C-alpha cells in the first residue's frame, strides 16, 4: 500500500503515541504566512435534501453534524484518539466512585449575547432525555439522573449518575449532545454558542453562516461559511474542480487518486475514520459455532480487501474496533490469512460445503464490492457466500434483526461507546448478538474502575475475547477523503465525528 501522505501518518502517530491533541497548523503544505482573515468558504456535503433540519439534537447526517458543530458547542468533544477534550466545560471532577460529577463551564456566550449558563446545559440535556421524544443522544445521556442533578451556580453543574461511571466525559462529548439556550424549540433562526452564527437556511440547498466574533476559543478566520448539498460524490468533486466550492467532503478513494497528482485540488485523508467489517450473528447457526467464526477470521484476505475496496485509502484491521483510539489493544498480533487452518476449522465445525447469505446493500460506499471480494475469498476455503443486495434505506434495521452475516461499517466513537451500544446483553444495536454475562461484567468493571491503568487492562481483556471469538470480522479502517481547492488552508485531518473533523473555525483562505 503506497502512502502518498507520509506527513499525515506521522502526525497521526505522534498524536496517538504522545496523546497530543493536533494543534495549530496541520495542513499538508507548510503555510508561507499565518492564517488570513476573511472570505467565504463553500463546503459541499452529501445531504438529506429538503428534509434536513437545523435542530442540532436531531442531527444524524454528516452535514448536520458539521453544521451543528459550527453553530453550537458541546460540553466536550473527541480528540483524534477519541479521548474527550473539554469544550464548553472547562473541567470535570468526579467524586471518589465516579457517580457524581462536578462540571465547570467556561465563560462563553450565545450568539445573542446571553451567557451560557448551567441552566442551559440542564435544559438541553432534559430536552434530549424527554421520554416522549427520540433523540439520538438519549441512550448515551440516560446514565444521568436528571432529577438528582443540579446547577450549583451559573457556571457549575453537579451531575448525579444512576451508577458509577468513569467514562462520563464520553457522554458530554457524545454525538449531537449540543448545548442550546434554555427552552428553545424553534430552530428557524438557530442561536448557539459555536464559532459561526446563523444567516440563512434554504432546506436542501444551502446554509449560510457568519463568523461569531466573540467565540470563547477566539474568532474564526473565515467571514462566512456556506454549506451546500450534493449527494453524488462525482458532483462534489466536479464542483471542486470547477471552483464552485472550496471544500468537498467525502470523496471516493478512486477520485482522490485520479486528481491528487494533477495539482488542481488538495486531497486530505483522515485515517481511522470508517470501520469496515462483516458482522456474524453469534446467537444462531451457522456462526454460533466458534470454530466457524475463527475460520472466517482466517480466510479473510484483509490486504486484498483494503486494496480493492478502499483503493488503498485505508489500513488493514485486526477484527477489533477503533485502531489508534484510547484503550485499543495494539498488543494483539495482527491476524493474517491462513487458508489451511481455516479449512481445518471449517471441517471441525462440520461446515464443509456451507452455503451462507451475506446481506449487504448500497447503504455505505464499498459494501457490495467488499461483499463480492469476500465471497471469492471464502470460496477458497470451501464456503459458499451468496451476496444478497437489499434495500439501502432500511439496511441497518433489517440486518439488526435478520440474517446471520451482514456488511457493517461504523464511524468513530470511543471503544467504550462501541461496547456499550453494540456488545452488551442490553445493547440496543447489538448486530452480532454478542450477549455474555461475563463480558457485561467486564464492561461494568471497566467503567467503574477509577484507576486508569487497571481500567485499560480490563478493556484489553475484553478485546482479547472479541479478537478470539467475537462476531465482528473487522477487515479495514477507511480513510476519510476530503478535497479542497489550493486556496484553502488549515483543514485538519481527524476521524470523522471527532473535534477536528469538518472544523471550519481554524480554516482560512489564502
Amino acid at each position, binding site marked *: 500500500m503506497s502512502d502518498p501522505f507520509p506527513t499525515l501518518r506521522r502526525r497521526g502517530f505522534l498524536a496517538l503515541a504522545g496523546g497530543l491533541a493536533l494543534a495549530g497548523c496541520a495542513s499538508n503544505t507548510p503555510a508561507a504566512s499565518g492564517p488570513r482573515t476573511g472570505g467565504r468558504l463553500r463546503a*459541499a456535503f452529501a445531504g438529506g435534501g429538503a428534509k434536513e433540519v437545523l435542530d442540532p439534537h436531531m442531527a444524524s447526517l454528516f452535514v448536520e453534524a458539521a453544521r451543528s458543530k459550527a453553530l453550537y458547542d458541546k460540553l466536550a468533544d473527541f480528540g483524534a484518539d477519541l479521548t474527550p477534550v473539554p469544550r464548553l466545560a472547562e473541567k470535570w471532577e468526579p467524586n471518589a466512585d465516579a457517580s457524581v460529577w462536578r462540571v465547570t463551564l467556561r465563560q462563553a456566550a450565545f450568539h445573542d449575547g446571553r451567557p451560557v449558563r448551567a441552566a442551559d446545559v440542564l435544559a438541553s440535556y432534559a430536552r434530549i432525555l424527554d421520554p416522549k421524544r427520540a433523540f439520538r443522544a438519549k441512550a448515551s445521556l440516560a446514565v444521568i439522573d436528571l432529577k438528582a442533578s443540579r446547577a450549583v451556580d451559573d457556571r457549575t453543574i453537579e451531575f448525579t449518575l444512576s451508577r458509577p461511571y468513569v467514562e462520563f466525559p464520553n457522554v458530554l462529548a457524545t454525538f449531537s449532545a449540543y448545548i442550546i439556550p434554555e427552552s428553545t424549540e424553534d430552530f428557524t433562526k438557530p442561536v448557539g454558542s459555536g464559532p459561526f452564527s446563523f444567516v440563512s437556511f434554504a432546506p436542501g440547498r444551502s446554509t449560510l453562516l457568519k463568523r461569531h466574533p466573540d467565540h470563547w476559543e477566539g474568532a474564526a478566520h473565515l467571514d462566512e461559511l456556506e454549506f451546500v448539498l450534493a449527494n453524488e460524490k462525482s*458532483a462534489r468533486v466536479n464542483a471542486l474542480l470547477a471552483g464552485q*466550492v472550496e471544500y468537498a467532503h467525502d470523496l471516493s478513494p478512486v477520485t482522490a487518486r485520479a486528481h491528487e497528482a494533477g495539482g488542481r485540488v488538495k486531497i486530505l485523508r483522515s485515517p481511522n475514520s470508517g470501520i469496515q467489517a462483516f458482522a456474524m450473528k453469534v446467537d444462531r447457526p451457522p456462526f454460533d459455532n466458534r470454530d466457524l467464526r475463527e475460520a472466517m477470521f482466517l480466510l479473510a484476505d484483509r490486504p486484498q480487501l483494503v486494496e480493492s475496496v478502499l483503493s488503498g485509502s485505508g489500513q488493514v484491521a485486526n477484527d477489533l474496533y477503533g485502531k489508534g483510539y484510547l484503550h485499543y489493544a495494539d498488543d494483539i498480533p495482527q491476524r493474517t490469512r491462513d487458508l489451511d487452518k481455516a479449512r481445518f476449522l471449517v471441517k471441525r465445525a462440520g461446515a464443509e460445503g456451507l452455503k451462507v447469505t451475506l446481506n449487504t446493500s448500497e447503504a455505505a460506499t464499498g459494501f457490495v464490492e467488499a461483499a463480492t471480494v469476500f465471497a471469492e475469498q471464502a470460496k477458497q476455503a470451501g464456503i459458499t457466500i451468496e451476496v444478497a443486495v437489499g434495500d439501502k434505506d432500511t439496511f441497518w434495521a433489517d440486518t439488526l434483526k435478520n440474517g446471520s452475516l451482514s456488511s457493517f461499517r461504523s464511524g468513530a466513537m470511543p471503544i467504550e461507546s462501541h461496547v456499550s451500544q453494540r456488545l452488551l446483553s442490553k445493547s440496543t444495536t447489538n448486530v452480532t448478538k454478542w450477549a455474555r454475562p461475563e463480558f457485561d461484567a467486564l464492561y461494568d468493571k471497566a467503567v467503574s474502575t477509577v484507576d486508569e491503568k487497571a481500567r485499560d487492562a480490563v478493556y484489553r481483556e475484553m478485546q482479547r475475547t472479541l479478537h478470539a471469538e467475537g462476531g465482528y470480522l473487522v477487515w479495514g479502517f477507511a480513510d476519510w477523503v476530503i478535497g479542497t481547492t489550493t486556496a484553502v488552508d488549515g483543514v485538519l485531518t481527524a476521524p470523522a465525528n471527532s473535534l477536528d473533523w469538518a472544523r471550519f473555525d481554524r480554516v482560512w483562505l489564502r
Partner: protein
Amino acid sequence: MSLGRYACRRLLLGLVQVLAVLVAVFLLVEALPGDAAVALAGDNPDPARVAAIRAAMGLDQPLVTRFGEWLHALVRGDLGESLVSGRPVADFLADGLPTTLLLAGLTMLLLVPSSVVLGVFVARRAGGRVDRVVTALTIGLHAVPEFALAIVLVALFGVELGWLPPTALGADPLADPAVLVLPVIVLLARPLCAVTRLVRAAMVDALASDYVRHARRLGLSRARVDYAHALPNALAPAVQQLARTTDWLLGGVIVVEAVFVIPGLGTSLVDAVAGRDMPVVQGLAVLFGVTTVLVNLLADVVAFRLAPRAGSAA
C-alpha cells in the same frame, strides 16, 4: 362531438386518473421495505427509538386511516406536513417548482421549434444524403441514456475545458443561467430526436398523400402546399408526442437534477422516497399527476383542432 363536451369528458377522466395515481403511489411506497421511522433512525436502529419515532410520526395508525385522513385534508387544500422535518409539503413544492418548471419549460420552448424545423427540413429532402445523416444521428443520440450523456458533457465541458459550470451547486439558476446550459442540453437530446423523427415521418406521409398531390396538380407553390396543407396534418401526431414528452421530462428531470445538483422537484422526490416521507411523496404525486393529465388533455384538444379526425378517434 363538440370540443367542449370532449374536453369535459376528458377532464372527468383525468380526475379519476389522478385519484388512481395517488392510490397506486401510496400503496407502492407502503410496499417498500421499512418506513420513515426506520429510514430516519438509519445506522442507529435502536428498536425502542424506532418505535418512539414511529409513534411521533403517527405511523402506528392503520394504513386506511392514514390515507383517508390525508385525502380528506387534500380535498380541503391541505397537503400535510413532512414526516421528517415537519415542514408543510406545500413549501417543498413551492421551493422546487420554479426550478423544475424553468428547466422543463426551457426544454419544451427549445424543443418545439427546433424539432419541427428539423423534421420538416429533412422530410423535404427525404432519401437524400442530409436525411440519412440526420436520421443516423437522431437514432444514435436517442439511444444514449440521459445520465451517460450528462456525465460525458460534464467531464468534457464542465471539468476538462471549463467552459460551463459542471453543477448548479449553490447557484441560483435565475441569477446564473449558465448552470442550466448543460442540463437543458441533456434534457433536450432524446425528445428532440424522437419528435424530429416523428415530424419527419408524418411529413413524408403527408407529402405523399392524395390531397397534397392534388394541391400540387392545382399548381399551388411548393412552399404553400408543404407548409399550409401538409404541415398541419403532420403536426397532430407530433403534438401528442410532445405531450408524452412532458411525462418523460418529469422523469428526465429527476436524473438531470441529481447529476447536476439542481434542487428541484426531482431531487425532493428522490429524497422523499429514500426517507419514506409519505406526505411529501404524495404531494409530488398530486402535482406530477395533475400536470401530466392537464398537458395530455391540452395536447388532445390541440390535436382535435388541428385534425378533427385524429382527435375524435382517440
